[in-house]
C-alpha cells in the first residue's frame, strides 16, 4: 500500500474550483444530479466511475463545453451561475475557459496546422501575443513535453502519444490555472500511455491543479491527492487513493473496482480477494451504453 507523496499544495483554504449544486441533463437524461465539490490550488483530483456515470460531463461542464442547467461554478475567482444568457454570461464563460486548459481523449489537434502552429494559435489569437513571443514559448513547452524535434510536423505525421503531448503543450500555452484531462490515455495504444502519463506526472509535481478523468489506477495512486468515484450522477465516494481503491466504504465502489483492479493492479486485486474470471458477466454490464447505465437504479448513491 502506498501513501500519497507529500507535496506543497498551498494554503488549505486556497480553493481554486468550487462547484455548487450542479445539474446537467440532456433532454430527459439527467446526468448530473446536484454535484458539489471544491478543488484546492495545486490539488490533483482523479475522477473514476463507470461509463455514463457523468464524470466526463462534469469535466466538460467546468469549462462550459456543456452548459449546465443549474448550479454555480467558480474557478479562480470567476463565478458563473449556470443557465444564464446574454453578453455578460458569455464573457464570464470565456473567462472561465481562459483559466482552464483541457486535454481531450481524441486529442483534437488542428489537422491543418503544424505542431508549432497548434501551440501558438490561441496565444496569438486570444491573448494577442506576437508570433515571435508565442513561438518562443511554444518551443519551451514542446521541449518540456519532449517534442522539440517534432515542431514542424503535422498532427497526422506523429504518434498518438506525441499528439496528446502536443495537446498538453497547447493547453499549457494559455497559462491555465487548472488543467482538465478527459480520459487522456483511453485512445492510446498501451505502449504509448506511459509517455503521456509521464508528462502529466511532471505537471503535477510542478504544482499544477489538475482534474483528471481516468481509469489509470497507477497514475491515480502515484499522483492523485484525491480520488472521486462517481456513479449515476453523484459522487459516491471520495478520498485519498489508498482509501478509495483499497478500502472502499461503498458497495457500489467495490463493485466497480472489481472490473478495474484485476486488469490494472492484479496484486492489489488479489489482496482484496477479487479475481478477474468471476466477474466476466459484470464486465459486459459495464460495457453497456450511457443510457443503459443511466437508467440503472442509483442503488449505490449515498444514503442508499
Amino acid at each position, binding site marked *: 500500500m502506498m501513501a500519497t507523496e507529500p507535496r506543497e499544495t498551498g494554503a488549505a483554504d486556497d480553493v481554486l474550483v468550487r462547484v455548487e449544486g450542479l445539474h446537467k441533463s*440532456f*433532454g*430527459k437524461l439527467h446526468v448530473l444530479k446536484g454535484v458539489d465539490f471544491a478543488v484546492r490550488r495545486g490539488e490533483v483530483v482523479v475522477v473514476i466511475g463507470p461509463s455514463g456515470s457523468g464524470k466526463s460531463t462534469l469535466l466538460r461542464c467546468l*469549462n462550459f*463545453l456543456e452548459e449546465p442547467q443549474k448550479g454555480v461554478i467558480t474557478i479562480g475567482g470567476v463565478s458563473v451561475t449556470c443557465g444564464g*444568457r446574454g453578453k455578460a454570461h458569455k464573457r464570464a464563460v*470565456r473567462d472561465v*475557459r*481562459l483559466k*482552464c*486548459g*483541457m486535454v*481531450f481523449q*481524441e486529442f*483534437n*489537434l*488542428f*489537422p*491543418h*496546422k*503544424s505542431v508549432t502552429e497548434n501551440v501558438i*494559435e*490561441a496565444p496569438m*489569437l*486570444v491573448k494577442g501575443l506576437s508570433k515571435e513571443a508565442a513561438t518562443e514559448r511554444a518551443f519551451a513547452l514542446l521541449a518540456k513535453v519532449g517534442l522539440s524535434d517534432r515542431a514542424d510536423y*503535422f*498532427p*497526422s*505525421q506523429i504518434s498518438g502519444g506525441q499528439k496528446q503531448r502536443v*495537446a498538453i503543450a*497547447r*493547453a499549457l500555452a*494559455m497559462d491555465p490555472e487548472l488543467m482538465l484531462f478527459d480520459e487522456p490515455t483511453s485512445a492510446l495504444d498501451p505502449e504509448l500511455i506511459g509517455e503521456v502519463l509521464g508528462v502529466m506526472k511532471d505537471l503535477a509535481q510542478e504544482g499544477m491543479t489538475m482534474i483528471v478523468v481516468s481509469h489509470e489506477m497507477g497514475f491515480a495512486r502515484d499522483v492523485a491527492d484525491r480520488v472521486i468515484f462517481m456513479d449515476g450522477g453523484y459522487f459516491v465516494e471520495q478520498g485519498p487513493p489508498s482509501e478509495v481503491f483499497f478500502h472502499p466504504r461503498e458497495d457500489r465502489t467495490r463493485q466497480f473496482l472489481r472490473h478495474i483492479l484485476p486488469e490494472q493492479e492484479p496484486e492489489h486485486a488479489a489482496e482484496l480477494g477479487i479475481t478477474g474470471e468471476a466477474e466476466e458477466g459484470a464486465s459486459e454490464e459495464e460495457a453497456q451504453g450511457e443510457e443503459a447505465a443511466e437508467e440503472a437504479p442509483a442503488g449505490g448513491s449515498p444514503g442508499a
Partner: protein
Amino acid sequence: MKKLVLTILALVLVLGAMAPAASAAGKLPEVTQGSPYDGMAYEWGVTAVQVYYMPGSSPVDPLKCELYVNGERVTPLGDPVDSQLAQGASLQFNLPEDFQPPKGELEFRAVLVTKAGDEVSYDWTYTYGGQKRKPLIDFALMRDWFTFIAQGALVTIELTVLSILFATLLALLGALGRLSKSTSAREAWTKYRSWTYMVGWVGRMVPYGIATFYTSLFRGTPLLLQIIFIYLAIPGFNNYAYGAWGFKIPEPGPFASAAVALSLNYGAYLTEVWRAGIQAVPKGQTEAAWALGMTGMQTWRRITLPQAFKIVIPAIGNDFIALIKDTSLASTIALPELLQKARLVGGRTYDFLSPLLVAAAVYWALTIFFSFWQARLERRLERDTARG
C-alpha cells in the same frame, strides 16, 4: 429596182425592230440579277442558278428558257421553276448532279423567253472556287470562323469564373443559414422549457428558413427557366414599379442575367456542399478551440472554415466544370458566348455541323484544362490533408 429592194429591206428591218415591242405591248421582262454572283451572302452551292427579273407584259415561259455556262448550253434538272416574289420573280434552273463547271471565272447567260415568244438574254460572271459539294466537315469554314467562335470562349470563361465566385459566397451564407437550426421546436422546448430560449430559437429559425427556401427553390426549378426569368422578369417588374411607384432597379443584360442565374443556382447546390463540409469538421475541433478561449468567430474563421474548405474544394471544382458547360444555356438569351456564336455561324453558312464541332472542341478543351488544374489542386490538398 435597187431602190425597191432597199426600201423593202428597210421596211423589214423597221418591222423586225418593231415586232417585239408590238407583241409585248411595249414591255419586256427586265433581268435585275443572276445568281450566283460575286459577294453573295453564302458560297454558291452548284445546285441551282437563279435569274431575278421584273416580269414584262407577257409572262415568262420556263420551259423555253435557256441557260448557258461559258457558252455551252446547260440542260437543267427538270423544268426551270418560275416563282413570284414580292417584287419581281425568280427563274430557277436546277442543275444536274453531274454538272461540274471549271474553277475560275464563269460566264453565265440566261435567255428568258416569254409566252409571246420574245427573248431577253442576260449575261453575268461569277468567280467559282471549284467546290462542287460542301464537305461533311468543312475545315475551311472552321478556319475562317474559328476566331469569331473562339471569342465566345472568353465570355464563357468570364461568366464561369464570376458565377462560381458568387455561387461560393452565396453557398457559404446559405450553409450558415442551413446550419443555424440545431433542434426542432419540440426538442428545444422539452430541453429548456424557457420562453426566452424559444424566442432565440425562433430568431435562429429565420436564416434557416431563408436558406432552406432558397436552396429548395433554386434546386427545384430549371436553370434555363431561371436565366430566362431574370432576363425578362426584372424588366417586367421594373416596368410595373416605374409606373406604379416611380423607381426602377438596375436591369441585368444578357451577361448579368446569366451570371445572376448561374450564381444563384450553383449557390443553391453548393450550399449543401458547404453544409456537409462544415458538418464534416469534427465537433472536437470546435470544442478544442473553445476550450482554448477562442470566440465563436475566431473558431469559425481559423479552425472550422479552413478545414471545411479543404473538404468542399473537390466539389466546387466539379461544379466549376459543370458550370462551364451550363453557361451555354445563356445562348437562349442571345448572350454571344461560345454556343451562340457557333449557332450564328451556322445560320450564316447553312452549315451547323462544322461550327458546332468547333464550339464542342473549345468546350472540351476548356473542361480538360480546368480538370487538369482541379486534379493538381486536389492532389496538393490531399498531400496537405495527409500531413494535417
